[in-house]
């Protein structure tokens, strides 16, 4: 029976099944495709919880290596639970990284270069001059809320306390400001 190319497998679980059913290391295309899909998501998880690009990159390496290793070893019985499985590895790895545990060098030493996933793309998505020009066009309150929020990643209650606004009001202004900024930057209404 013909097997479809890995990039046409829409379901992540199908990739995980293909890795789990192959002899260890004999499904390199499925492993590479799964890494290509999951690595950017794990990087975002790392940025969210570690707030540091380098730490997020370390996490990404660690989680992808462990995920592939465990799939090869058949440790995930129900591949439909892949996200939950990766989430568990992420949580454990964040704790380890916070404790100053495994670093990339040790991981590579342990697992070898052949399993190292490609780094997530880091090219900027937005033209900075265009973003600045669009920010300058926003209503004052929207600009102030967006800057106070995203310059330091501060939640609505803290931003509100500094501008004399309720947290709910800040969230409304933030949502409106982001929508208007995105529309201006991308040139698409409702983008």
């Amino acid at each position, binding site marked *: 029976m013909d097997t479809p190319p890995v990039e046409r497998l829409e379901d992540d679980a199908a990739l995980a099944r293909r890795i789990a059913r192959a002899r260890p290391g004999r499904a390199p295309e499925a492993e590479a495709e799964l890494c290509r899909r999951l690595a950017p998501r794990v990087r975002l998880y790392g940025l*969210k919880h570690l707030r540091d690009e380098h730490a997020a990159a370390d996490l990404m390496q660690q989680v992808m290596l462990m995920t592939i290793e465990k799939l090869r070893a058949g440790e995930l019985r129900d591949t439909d639970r892949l996200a939950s499985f990766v989430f568990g590895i992420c949580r454990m790895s964040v704790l380890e990284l916070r404790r100053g545990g495994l670093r990339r060098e040790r991981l590579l030493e342990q697992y070898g270069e052949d399993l190292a996933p490609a780094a997530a793309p880091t090219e900027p998505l937005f033209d900075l001059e265009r973003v600045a020009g669009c920010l300058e066009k926003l209503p004052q309150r929207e600009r102030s809320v967006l800057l106070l929020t995203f310059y330091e990643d501060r939640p609505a209650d803290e931003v509100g306390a500094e501008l*004399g606004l309720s947290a709910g009001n800040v969230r409304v202004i933030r*949502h409106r400001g982001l929508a208007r900024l995105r529309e201006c*930057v991308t040139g698409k209404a409702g983008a």
Partner: protein
Amino acid sequence: MNQAACAAPLDERELSAYWLGELAEADEARVDEHILGCGHCSARLGELVALAGAIKEAFRRGDVHAFLSDAFVKRAAERGLRVREYRVPRNGSVNCTVAPEDELVVSHLEVPLEDVSRIDVVLHAPGLPADVRHDVPFDAEHGEVLFVPNLTQLRAAPSQRLRLELVAIDDKGRRVLGEYTFNHTAHEA
């Protein structure tokens, strides 16, 4: 989980709240797991994070003006940013400039703000029509409006006198709260 589409996409507001740490623990864990399993929503989160980074970088480069808070300026100084601050009394003036090493220039415009609900700022520059900035945020508790100019434009500005008016807007109409004069001297290399 499907790579291209999502049967139950996360709400835009929830994505922002997640990124900013506003969700309760259980909700955050639910979004964590969804993001890890969903190409569509993780791409949307990635776009939000990139836009947030671009906002930060545009302001860091000095390409954006804003009305901000005293607490923000204090945190910026604590982080080691080179901050040049001017305190301008109501109806007063100040001699000012910007140096190449300045990373943030801040004007504290002192003004009584009791019973003020909305302020417009009118900027008068030589040879240009009046520039009105509507409904600016202000700090009523400290009695000031805190203006952070566009640093890139300020660096390019010639020596000149700029005048700024704070105007209260309410159901009785408009009243000028104060005037502020900036005698700007362009930095000489």
